[in-house]
């Protein structure tokens, strides 16, 4: 049985199931096959800067280094917030009820996406009350962590096509720009287009 997340709205609690959604599930997937001039199958590898060292999947690793470039044991690291204060770990959102707060469209649009889930009623549950609220323009948010960890992501619950979706991500760092904040450029027969005509399948 899938894990159930408990959402709480206006004092009512709803156990919900989550199904992760991605492009592959909606439109299918595309894999690339490559062949050389003689029809031999070719595969992608990473080439190091020396121009001869070829690296396959799993051939690289991440090392944590200090300011001097010396490798540091990860178990000795401390997680801190932007003020340098230690961070209290957060529990998994599956451990207890998650209170939904109303959110604005702009807050949602400021989110950097990580994952999308389709929400369904939990066993013997009913999410009609939630769906009724989502049928309008209501959006809800709550702090979310799948397994628990150092910080929460931000989850938004919104409705589309009579279904409830949960979109998880983190707020983006947008900057309101003034005249003196210019950047330097990194150099590198009309057809009517309707929003309804947008083709996602072929993307």
């Amino acid at each position: 049985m899938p894990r159930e997340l408990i959402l709480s709205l206006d004092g009512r609690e709803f156990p919900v199931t989550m199904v992760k959604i991605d492009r592959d599930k909606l439109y299918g997937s595309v894999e690339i096959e490559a062949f050389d001039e003689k029809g031999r199958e070719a595969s992608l590898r990473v080439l190091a800067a020396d121009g001869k060292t070829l690296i396959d999947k799993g051939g690289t690793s991440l090392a944590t280094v200090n300011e001097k470039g010396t490798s540091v044991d990860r178990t000795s690291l401390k997680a801190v917030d932007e003020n340098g204060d230690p961070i209290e770990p957060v529990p998994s959102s599956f451990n207890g009820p998650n209170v939904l707060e109303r959110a604005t469209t702009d807050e949602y649009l400021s989110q950097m996406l990580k994952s999308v889930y389709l929400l369904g009623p939990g066993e013997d549950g009913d999410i009609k009350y939630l769906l009724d609220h989502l049928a309008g323009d209501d959006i809800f948010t709550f702090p979310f962590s799948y397994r628990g960890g150092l910080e929460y992501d931000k989850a938004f619950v919104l409705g589309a096509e009579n279904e409830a979706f949960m979109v998880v991500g983190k707020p983006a760092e947008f900057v309101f720009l003034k005249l003196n904040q210019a950047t330097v450029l990194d150099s590198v027969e009309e057809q009517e287009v309707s929003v309804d005509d947008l083709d996602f399948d072929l993307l």
Partner: protein
Amino acid sequence: MAINISNPKGRDAVVAAEGVAPKRDVRYVDEKGKPVSNLKLLKTDVLHDLPELLKKKKKLEKIADALIKDDPEIDIEQFGMFLTDTSRVYVTSKGIVHLVEEFEVVTNPDGSPRDRRPRVKAAQNMNGEFPIKWTGKYIKKEDAIKRFVFTNKKQLVHVNGLTFDFLFDMAKELDKKKSLLLIRGGEKGNEPIVQNRGGKPYNAFLEGRVKKDSYCLILHLSNMELKKPKDLDAAES
């Protein structure tokens, strides 16, 4: 990254489209409270992988013996070096190849095959001969978020005083309409946005926000709709 974009009057300008990072609340420090960073290093290369060792030793048992006696899977000089400026290359059994023919194997959501076709690498259209078109197709923010999943974002940034006015006016117009604007690329202004040659095409929407004398112009990129997969519908019925 540069973007050549036109405004509602059809005037175009090249400005910057900068990547947007998520807010970072957690930082790691070492025992002295100093910040640390992560670097990629070489763990092993193909010359020391099992298939290569098998070519030399012929049998797994012989490889096992060699591993006990010696370290044939390790290059002490190389392994552990930090990797920078890496690139991706195609290799065959004969080594690196520079000329390959690529095919796309398309699979349906249920896993059944749909198509196999030669891969066509679309050229980027963010900063080309034809500016990104202001289509005039607005969609209310409330409607847009219920229809599209915005998988990536960029922020448009001015590069001089003239382009400040150019982008500020665009942001003001969009802020007033409380809508996202569909933008398209290509000669006819009807193509999705492709940021790099052979890159993923995205349906792109522009959002503008204004605070006093400052603006924020956000490019929302979407390659997915917010909807239930058909397979899930079928499984439930």
